[in-house]
């Protein structure tokens, strides 16, 4: 968004240059209202919505990468697919600093206590994505050492199918998580 007058966003589309971002015909984000008793350039909304809007566009993922899916996740953060377009660029490897746990790869019984602990170390609110079939269900490693899905030890918000999933699928999971964040009341 370029800056228009009085802090009103102006569309980047050259055909609409100079048209205020909130001109009739352009939808505003859900829950934000144009009818303002205060005057132009002021929007009214609920605090929940504002907080969730900020939260969903600044997800800090923790990639708990263990196997092949982690290599595909590297592809997602590299230039071609570029996760940062969705406001989830700040990949953090510390559970203390992240709010989205992205389990990419197989989790074995040996790894399970560690995954559980990493999840417990994350601050609320937090979300979990199981990337790929191994994390979702154990995949075709139906044997003595592989955990048959990480939901045996931690709650999961979103499962991504695929072995490994394509980068687009990971981006879609992120968008779904954003929708989920939008719908939830923000914790006080």
């Amino acid at each position, binding site marked *: 968004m370029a800056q228009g007058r009085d802090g009103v966003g102006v569309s980047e589309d050259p055909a609409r240059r100079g048209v205020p971002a909130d001109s009739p015909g352009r939808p505003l984000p859900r829950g934000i209202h144009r009818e303002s008793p205060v005057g132009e350039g002021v929007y009214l909304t609920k605090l929940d919505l504002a907080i969730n809007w900020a939260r969903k566009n600044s997800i800090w993922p923790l990639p708990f990468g*263990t196997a092949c899916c982690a290599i595909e996740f590297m592809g997602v953060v590299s230039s071609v697919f570029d996760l940062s377009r969705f406001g989830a660029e700040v990949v953090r490897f510390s559970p203390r600093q992240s709010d989205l746990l992205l389990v990419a*790869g197989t989790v074995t019984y040996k790894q399970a206590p560690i995954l559980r602990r990493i999840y417990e170390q994350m601050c609320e609110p937090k979300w979990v994505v199981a990337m790929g079939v191994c994390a979702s269900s154990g995949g075709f490693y139906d044997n*003595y*050492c592989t955990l048959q899905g990480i939901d045996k030890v931690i709650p999961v918000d979103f499962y991504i199918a695929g072995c490994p999933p394509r980068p687009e699928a990971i981006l879609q999971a992120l968008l779904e998580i954003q929708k989920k964040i939008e719908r939830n009341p923000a914790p006080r």
Partner: protein
Amino acid sequence: MPVVRLARGAITEALRFLRDEPSYRFDMLTDLTVVDCGELRDGDRFDVVYLLHSLERGERLAIKSPVPEEDCWIETATGIYKNADWTEREAYDQYGVVFRDHPNLKRILNHKEFVGHPLRRDYDIYKGQWLSEVDDLEDELERRRRRDPTPRGGQADAMILNLGPSHPAAHGTLRNLVELEGETVRYCIPEIGYLHRGFEKSAETHEYNQVIPYTDRLNYCSCLINNVAYSRAVEALCGIEVTDRCKFIRVIITELSRIMDHLVCNAANLVDLGALTNYWYLFNLRERIYNVIESLTGARLTTSYTRIGGLWADITPDFEEAVRAVLKEVPKAVGDTLKLIARNKIFIDRTVGIGVIDAEEAISFGFTGPCLRATGYEYDLRKRHPYDHYDSFDFEIPSGHQGDTYDRVMVRFEEIRQSCRIVEQALDKMPSGPVNVEHPRIILPPKKQTYESIEGLVGHFKLIMHGVNPPVGEAYVATEAANGELGFFIVSDGGMKPYKCKVRPPCFHIYSALPRLVEGGMVADVVAILGSLNIIAGELDR
């Protein structure tokens, strides 16, 4: 490969003789494994198998030593080959064979609360076991302190630090417990097995062709090489020779995978050193190769492209053009990166003289591939034991000077260039003809035959219902993978599934040298050294 049978009490002496005797010089223990012969014969249940290799003379030798189930011990080889330490631990973990006088005989892949030995034929594959608490490794640390006390002494200022397993530089599943004195590493205790997914047990319950998807996920940075390596092993077991066109295609996909593997290894290594920009440069090229691989196999990463006796399909019409276009981009990506690092003071300070190992010790640890060549020892299976027409290509084997981190990085960059040369020559020389062998019990007949002739229908039915049945026997076939010698030791009982399928992963042996490489150095160098070894957990833990 010749096989010698020895009594279990003579192992130590025999191995030492074979290593030191000038006319033998078996200087590398390629792999050590156990075969559970309970269903194959009466008498002693286990065979402990040592695969030896004389790098100078290029000869291999297998030693087998029978061990009964009730009194399950054998002499250790830890004093002779340095990589016997971990390989024996794995054999103990998976089969329960006790190695007498082993300095640290504890489980390595399975967790400490695991009961039983999963690779024994009577262990139920579905029987998972929970772990309540992670091993604190205190016992190993204490043993190390007792065995080699540091001259500086004094435990008062020691700091214990866990590097991994959930740590970006630990690449997901490697855990190292380090004891520090200030910033100097006193002891390093690696723990592996966090990605032990039971490849070898799963291989025993799947048909030969069904194992191929599992091989994809061993070294998941270069899946195609694993496909090729496994298929070559089974083909050797069946005694079949694939067609020339198939060999050339395999060379091309192998070398493309090698390029991809080195790209991701060096990119990750440079990120760990703080040089993030190179990651974008190198990974963009990798994405371009992904597109080629995807148009060929239908998958970006997990390809499952080969079949026993050939390939899933011939190359696509636009394949050659696409590969040549990608090859044109390689020099730019590599060149851009080298411009940033080759004379960069920080990079040189962080890598030159760090993690040095000489050739002799590297061989004793079972180093192969770029890590061995970085020590200055020019050893490459593609040159020494050419397969798939590698002897008809003109390419060099890059080697380093002193086996430090810098050499390991640079050898990989040079190998990328050499691989490009091989791919170009293979494209130029590509013969026409079929890609699959014509063998009704190995390769599915064409659909037209299946529907129109009784022989085709029967061949199709037999292959679908009973799979490929190699004759009774065993084979060890080694392939030069991106990380070194990737070998498959397969035992067949004549059935449709491998009786045993042991992978010889290059990483496993290289990683066992980590304490030797990092102890006495700085803690920050652990990360640099680890990255330069290119440890891929899928292959390390299988």
